[in-house]
C-alpha cells in the first residue's frame, strides 16, 4: 500500500519516541524470556540433580547409634546411611565443613574434575573454590593433612551452603564444604559428628521415627523440606518466577499505554488525512492496518531484539543463580514456549490499547474527520471547571498543560512510579539488610560465641551462660521451630517489644516471624508438639518480641526443663563473650557472631551487579517515559512555543513553561512508588516466607529516599537537556505556518 511508504518517514521524524517504545518492549521481552527460561532451566536441572543424587528425606542425630543399619533398612523398607562430618579451620576466618562420601543417599554429583579414589583426595564446593581460588590439582591442608583437590561437587542437602541454619545468606569467603573418602574420614584426628541420612522410597518415615525415638533417642530430626540449605532455593525460584511474570507485565503495560498515547496524538494530527483517505475510498480496515503497522514495528522489533538478548543471557543468568545455589547445570535447555511468548506478549498488550485508540478515531464520519480538529478542541470538564485565578501565569499554564490529557498524565505518573520502584528496590534491600543486621541481630544477640553440645549436661563447668533448647512443631502450621530455655537474667539475649522496651525474660516470649505464621497474639495459648518424641505441650504466650530472624520461643531455662521433664539446670548450649575451653569432641556446633556479621556484609557485594542492573533499567524507563511525554508535549505545543517566541519569551522562560510542567507529576509518581514498593515486596516476601524462618524487615531510610529522588531528578534534567534542543529548534515561522493552512 502506498500509505506504508510514509511509515519510515514518520518513524524517522520522531525517532526518539519510537526508539524509546521499542527499547521498552525490548526490555520486557528480554526480562520475560530471560527470567522464565533461566528459571525453568535451573528448576529442571535441580530436579535432575536431586534425582541423580538420591536426595534424603530426613537427616537425624541419635543419642545412641544404630547397631544394625541393614536390619532397620529391611524392616522399614528405607535407605539409611551414616555420614560423618567435621568443621576445620583452614585459615583465620575460613571454615571448611568436611563430609565423608556417601553412596546410597545424598551422594555427591561431580561438577568438574573427577571423583575421589584415594584417601588423600578431596572434592570442593565449586563456588567456595572459585571464591578462594582453589583449582583442581591444588593441595589443601585440612587439620594438618594435605589433600589434593581432584574435583568440584554438588550435594542436594547443601544446595544453599549456609554455615549454620540460622544464617540468612551464604558466604563463600568464610565457609565451604568438601568431601573426602570414608577411609580418609577414619584417619582424621577429630571425631566430628555424624548424621544418619534417611531415604524412604515410599515416602513414610513415621514408623521408623517412632522406633528410633523409643530405642535410640532422637536429638535432632530434620526433614528435607525443613532444611533451609535445601528449601531456600525453592523460595528463591518461586520469587523469581513471580518476578519473571510481574516485571515484564508492568513494563509492557506501561509501554502499551505510552504507545497508545503517542499514536493517539499522531492520529489526532492526521484526522484530515484520514478523512481524505476515507473519502478516496480507503476502507476502515485498510486505514487501521496502516496505523497498526506502526505498532507492529514497535512490537516486532522490540520483541525480537529482546528475545535474542534474553536468550543470550540465559546462560549467564543461570550461572549467576548457581553462584548462590550449588545446582549443577547438567543439561542446559531452552523452553521454547517462552520464546514464542516473549515474541507474542508485546502484541497481547499493545494491540488492545491500539484498537481502542483507532476505534475512537475511525468512528467519525469522513466529513467530520476532514474538517479535522473538532474532536481535538473539545475542552475537558476539568479544564472548564478548574479555578486558577489566584495563581501566577506560569503555574496556570502548567496546570492547564497537565490537565489537558489525563491519559498522558496517567502514563507519566505510572511510568515514574514503576521506574522509582525499580530504583528504590536496591535501596530498600540495602537499608533492610543494614537494619536487620544492626537493630535485629546485634541488638538482640549479645553473645560472641554460641556452642551447642552433643549431649545434655547438668552443670556448667565451662563458663559463659548455659541454655537449653528443643525443636517443636505446631501441627498443620509450622513444621519446626526452636524453644529456648534461657536464664531469666540472661546478658546475651536481649528482647524488646515493638515499642523498643525490654521484655522481662521471666515471660514466655515468641519471635515476631513465628507469631506471624502461627497467628498468635500476646496472651494466647498454643499447643506445641515436640519433634523428637511427639509429645504435646500447652503453653501461654506472654509477649511478642520484635526480632526478625528466627522461628523461636524463649522461656526461662527452668521452665523449659520442667516442661520436658529434665533436671532444672540441664542445658545443651552455651552463650559466651569469650572463646570457651570446651573439649572438641563434646561440641556439636559452634558459631561466632562474627560469622553472622561477615555473612551479612558479604551478601551486598555479589548483589551489586543485579541491583546495579535494576537501577539502570529504572533510569532507562524513567528517561524514556519523561522524554516521550515531554516530547509529546513539545510536539503538541509547537505552535504555542513558536508563539511564545514571537511574543518575546526568552528560551529560559519557554523551557520553564514547557519542561517544568511535569515536575509535580514526577514527584507524585516518586512519592507513590515508596509505599507501593514496600507493599508489593511485603506481599512477595510473605508469599514464600512460610518455609523460611525470618521476617524480612522492609526499611527505607530518609537518606536513601533523598538519594533515589536525586537520581530521578538527574534523569529528569537529562531528559530536559535533550528536550531543550527540540524546543530551540522550533522556528517562529511555525506559528505563521498554521495561518497559511
Amino acid at each position, binding site marked *: 500500500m502506498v500509505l506504508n511508504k510514509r511509515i519510515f518517514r514518520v518513524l524517522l521524524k520522531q525517532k526518539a519516541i519510537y526508539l524509546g517504545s521499542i527499547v521498552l518492549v525490548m526490555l520486557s521481552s528480554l526480562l520475560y524470556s530471560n527470567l522464565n527460561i533461566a528459571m525453568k532451566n535451573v528448576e529442571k536441572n535441580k530436579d535432575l540433580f536431586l534425582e541423580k543424587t538420591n536426595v534424603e528425606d530426613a537427616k537425624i542425630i541419635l543419642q545412641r547409634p544404630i547397631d544394625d543399619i541393614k536390619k532397620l533398612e529391611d524392616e522399614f523398607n528405607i535407605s539409611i546411611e551414616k555420614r560423618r562430618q567435621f568443621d576445620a579451620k583452614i585459615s583465620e576466618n575460613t571454615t571448611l565443613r568436611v563430609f565423608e562420601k556417601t553412596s546410597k543417599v545424598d551422594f555427591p554429583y561431580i561438577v568438574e574434575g573427577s571423583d575421589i579414589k584415594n584417601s588423600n583426595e578431596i572434592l570442593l564446593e565449586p563456588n567456595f573454590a572459585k571464591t578462594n581460588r582453589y583449582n583442581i590439582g591444588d593441595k589443601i591442608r585440612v587439620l594438618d593433612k594435605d589433600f589434593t583437590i581432584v574435583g568440584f561437587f554438588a550435594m542436594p542437602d547443601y544446595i544453599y551452603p549456609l554455615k549454620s541454619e540460622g544464617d540468612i545468606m551464604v558466604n563463600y569467603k568464610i565457609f565451604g564444604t568438601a568431601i573426602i573418602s570414608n577411609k580418609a574420614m577414619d584417619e582424621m584426628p577429630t571425631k566430628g559428628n555424624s548424621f544418619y541420612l534417611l531415604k524412604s522410597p515410599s515416602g513414610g518415615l513415621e514408623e521408623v521415627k517412632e522406633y528410633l525415638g523409643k530405642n535410640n533417642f532422637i536429638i535432632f530430626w530434620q526433614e528435607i523440606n525443613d532444611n533451609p540449605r535445601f528449601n531456600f532455593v525453592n523460595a528463591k525460584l518461586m520469587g523469581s518466577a513471580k518476578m519473571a511474570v510481574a516485571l515484564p507485565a508492568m513494563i509492557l503495560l506501561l509501554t502499551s499505554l505510552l504507545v497508545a498515547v503517542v499514536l493517539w496524538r499522531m492520529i489526532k494530527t492526521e484526522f484530515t488525512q484520514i478523512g481524505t483517505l476515507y473519502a478516496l475510498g480507503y476502507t476502515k480496515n485498510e486505514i487501521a492496518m496502516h496505523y497498526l503497522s506502526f505498532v507492529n514495528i514497535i512490537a516486532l522489533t522490540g520483541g525480537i531484539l529482546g528475545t535474542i538478548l534474553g536468550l543470550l543471557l540465559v546462560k549467564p543468568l543461570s550461572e549467576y543463580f548457581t553462584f548462590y545455589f550449588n545446582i549443577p547445570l547438567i543439561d542446559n535447555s531452552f523452553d521454547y514456549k517462552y520464546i514464542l511468548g516473549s515474541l507474542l506478549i508485546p502484541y497481547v498488550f499493545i494491540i488492545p490499547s491500539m484498537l481502542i485508540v483507532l476505534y475512537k478515531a475511525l468512528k467519525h464520519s469522513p466529513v467530520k474527520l476532514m474538517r479535522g480538529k473538532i474532536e481535538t478542541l473539545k475542552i475537558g470538564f476539568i479544564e472548564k471547571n478548574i479555578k486558577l485565578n489566584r495563581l501566577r501565569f506560569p503555574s496556570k*499554564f502548567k496546570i492547564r498543560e497537565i490537565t489537558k490529557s489525563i491519559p498522558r498524565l496517567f502514563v507519566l505518573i505510572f511510568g515514574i512510579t514503576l521506574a522509582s520502584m525499580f530504583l528504590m528496590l536496591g535501596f530498600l534491600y540495602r537499608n533492610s539488610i543494614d537494619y536487620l543486621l544492626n537493630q535485629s541481630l546485634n541488638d538482640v544477640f549479645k553473645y560472641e560465641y554460641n556452642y551447642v553440645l552433643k549431649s545434655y549436661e547438668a552443670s556448667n563447668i565451662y563458663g559463659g551462660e548455659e541454655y537449653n533448647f528443643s525443636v517443636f512443631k505446631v501441627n498443620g502450621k509450622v513444621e519446626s521451630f526452636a524453644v529456648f530455655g534461657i536464664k531469666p537474667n540472661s546478658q546475651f539475649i536481649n528482647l524488646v517489644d515493638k515499642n523498643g522496651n525490654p521484655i522481662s525474660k521471666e515471660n514466655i516470649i515468641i519471635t515476631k516471624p513465628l507469631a506471624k505464621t502461627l497467628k498468635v497474639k500476646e496472651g494466647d495459648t498454643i499447643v506445641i508438639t515436640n519433634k523428637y518424641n511427639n509429645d504435646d505441650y500447652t503453653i501461654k504466650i506472654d509477649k511478642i518480641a520484635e526480632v526478625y530472624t528466627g522461628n523461636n520461643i524463649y522461656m526461662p531455662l527452668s521452665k523449659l526443663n520442667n516442661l520436658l521433664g529434665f533436671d532444672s539446670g540441664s542445658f545443651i548450649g552455651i552463650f559466651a563473650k569469650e572463646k570457651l575451653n570446651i573439649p572438641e569432641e563434646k561440641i556439636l556446633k559452634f558459631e561466632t557472631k562474627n560469622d553472622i556479621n561477615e555473612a551479612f556484609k558479604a551478601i551486598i557485594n555479589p548483589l551489586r551487579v543485579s541491583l546495579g542492573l535494576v537501577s539502570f533499567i529504572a533510569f532507562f524507563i524513567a528517561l524514556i517515559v519523561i522524554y516521550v511525554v515531554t516530547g509529546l508535549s513539545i510536539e503538541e505545543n509547537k505552535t504555542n512555543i513558536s508563539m511564545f517566541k514571537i511574543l*518575546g519569551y526568552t528560551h529560559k*522562560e519557554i523551557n520553564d513553561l514547557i519542561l517544568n510542567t511535569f515536575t509535580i507529576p514526577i514527584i507524585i509518581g516518586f512519592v507513590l512508588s515508596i509505599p507501593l514498593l514496600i507493599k508489593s515486596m511485603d506481599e512477595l516476601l510473605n508469599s514464600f516466607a512460610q518455609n523460611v524462618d525470618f521476617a524480612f524487615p522492609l526499611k527505607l531510610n530518609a537518606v536513601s529516599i533523598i538519594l533515589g529522588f536525586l537520581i530521578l531528578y538527574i534523569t529528569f534534567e537529562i531528559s530536559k537537556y535533550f528536550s531543550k534542543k527540540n524546543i530551540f529548534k522550533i522556528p517562529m515561522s511555525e506559528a505563521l505556518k498554521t495561518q497559511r493552512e
Partner: protein
Amino acid sequence: MFIQLNNVNKEFKSGKNLVFSLKNISFNVNKGQIITILGPSGSGKSTLLNLIGGIDRVDSGDILIGDVNISKLSDKDLTLYRRNKIGFVFQFYNLIPNLNVYENVEVAANISKQSLSLEKVLDSVGMLDKKDKFPQELSGGEQQRVSIARALVKNPEILLCDEPTGALDFKTAKEILMLLEKINKEYNTTIFIVTHNTAISSMADRIIRLRSGEIVEDKINSAKISAEGVEW
C-alpha cells in the same frame, strides 16, 4: 522619524534556486500612524512585517526603530525588542486552545514590565464579559479581539497586524478595524495593517503597495476616512 528602513533586502532560497526576494525596501514612518501594506498574495507583505517585528532578519540593509538598529541586535536583544516594543496580530489568531480568554492575554502580560491592566484591555476590546471562555467557544471576530488584547496588553509602540480581517465576514472585519483605530487614538500606537484588501487602506495615514518584493507605490493618504466608513 520613528521607523526607518534603508535598502532592506531579504531572499528566500530553495536549495540553489531563488524563490523570492524583497528588493531595496526603504521608507520612513512617523510615530502614531496607521500604515497599510497592500499587495497581491506572495508579494512579500508578511515578510516585510516579520522583518519589522524582529521575527526574521534582513540579509542586508538597516531597520531603525527609534535610534536602535534592530538588524544589528543579538538574538537575545531581538527577543527583548519583540517583548517590549512589538505587538503581533495574525489572520488566524494563534490563541492557545487550552487557555481561557483571560489567560491567553496573560501570556503576554506575564513577560511585560510595562503591561496594562488586563481587565482594562479586555474591556477596551469588548471581551471582559467573556474572559472565562475558551477560544473554541468564541466566534472568529471574538478570537481576533482576544488576540488584539494579547498584543495590546504589553502596551507596544508598534502593532503589526497581518491580514487581521482575512478570515472574518464584513461586519466583524469592520468592528476589528474600528477597534484598531480606537487603539491607535487611545494609545498613540503605530499600527501596520497588512492586507490584500485595497478598501481597507482608506482608513490609513500611509499606503505602501508591494509587488514581487518591490515597493511600487508609497503615498500619504490625504483622503483618510474613519474605519466606520470603510466599505467593500
